[in-house]
């Protein structure tokens, strides 16, 4: 199968709705300056594949929701936000999701969507039908995408960790 496209909504540094398409490419590069949002895009892919949040530089799901302007943490910050102040009570987005369009090798299209609800939980949908985390994982497992072991995802700074003897655990995962 192949990843055909991705849609992000209020995910990390991506305000509003962002769509990207992979078309028929085999090798795509994501480029841009430091801090622009490249790793956040990878976080979006990892997120929609069901990976645990602890891998995403965030402690809980709510950190993944786009945060635009000053919030409680920044309350001591003064300055140039005065215009927004009146609208800002709700400036933190309330919901966020990532959806990926995946084409199986038999041609069937799967729309996999993972949303963060207002109470900070994950909600999974496959082709608009709500499913359990387990069913979502299974559908991915059939495509050889294992979200327990990051077998196809190498996060920034992690590449050399594969060669530690605990990569043994990875191999077991892959088999089981």
């Amino acid at each position, binding site marked *: 199968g192949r990843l055909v496209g991705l849609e992000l909504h209020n995910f990390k540094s991506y305000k509003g709705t962002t769509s990207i398409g*992979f078309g028929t490419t085999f*090798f795509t590069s994501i480029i841009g300056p430091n801090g622009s949002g490249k790793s956040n895009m990878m976080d979006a*892919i990892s997120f929609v594949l069901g990976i645990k949040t602890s891998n995403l530089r965030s402690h809980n799901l709510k950190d993944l929701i786009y945060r635009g302007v000053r919030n409680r943490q920044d309350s001591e910050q003064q300055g140039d936000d005065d215009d927004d102040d009146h609208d800002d009570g709700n400036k933190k987005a309330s919901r966020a999701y990532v959806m990926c369009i995946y084409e199986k090798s038999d041609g069937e299209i799967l729309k996999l969507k993972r949303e963060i609800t207002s109470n900070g939980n994950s909600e999974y949908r496959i082709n608009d039908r709500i499913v359990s985390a387990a069913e979502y994982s299974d559908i991915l497992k059939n495509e050889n995408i294992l979200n327990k072991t990051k077998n196809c995802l*190498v996060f920034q700074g992690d*590449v*050399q960790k594969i060669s530690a003897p605990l990569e043994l655990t990875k191999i077991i995962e892959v088999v089981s």
Partner: protein
Amino acid sequence: RYALFNQAFEHISSHIDSIYKELTRTNSVISPLGGGGSAYLTLEDEDEPYLAGIKYHAMPPMKRFRDMELLSGGEKTIAALALLFAIHSFHPSPFFVLDEVDAALDNANVNKLTNYIVNNSNEHLQFIVISLKNSLFEKSDALIGIFRDQEENSSKTVTLDLRSYPVEA
């Protein structure tokens, strides 16, 4: 359990050397070792291998050490990538997402990695690579450019299909 584990281990073990060679080949006419380095896996516990560690040994071309700890930053990265690709070859996932795995690589090694990706990406294996290195991303089929829109306080994307700009010979 032993059977499952061993099936995976044997497969990965048998592929690691050729993948490592592909990533370290020098095409050098002066060197009989132009074929690349060598790599292999050993089990710490033969009877219940899933309970103990697996040791990975990689020897870069024209070097004589196999202790991973003594390898340089770039050598460790290439060895780790070979292992990653070898593990992947058993029940392969349809794509790879790699975030700045080339950070420690010199130009020669970036080229070897780039060639590996170009030669191994196809309809069954899609590579999505985040990189700051021109010589790598110039060879991809398409670029997704990420930039920060300061006014909107948001990341934005722009996509460019490089296949419509064939490299002139």
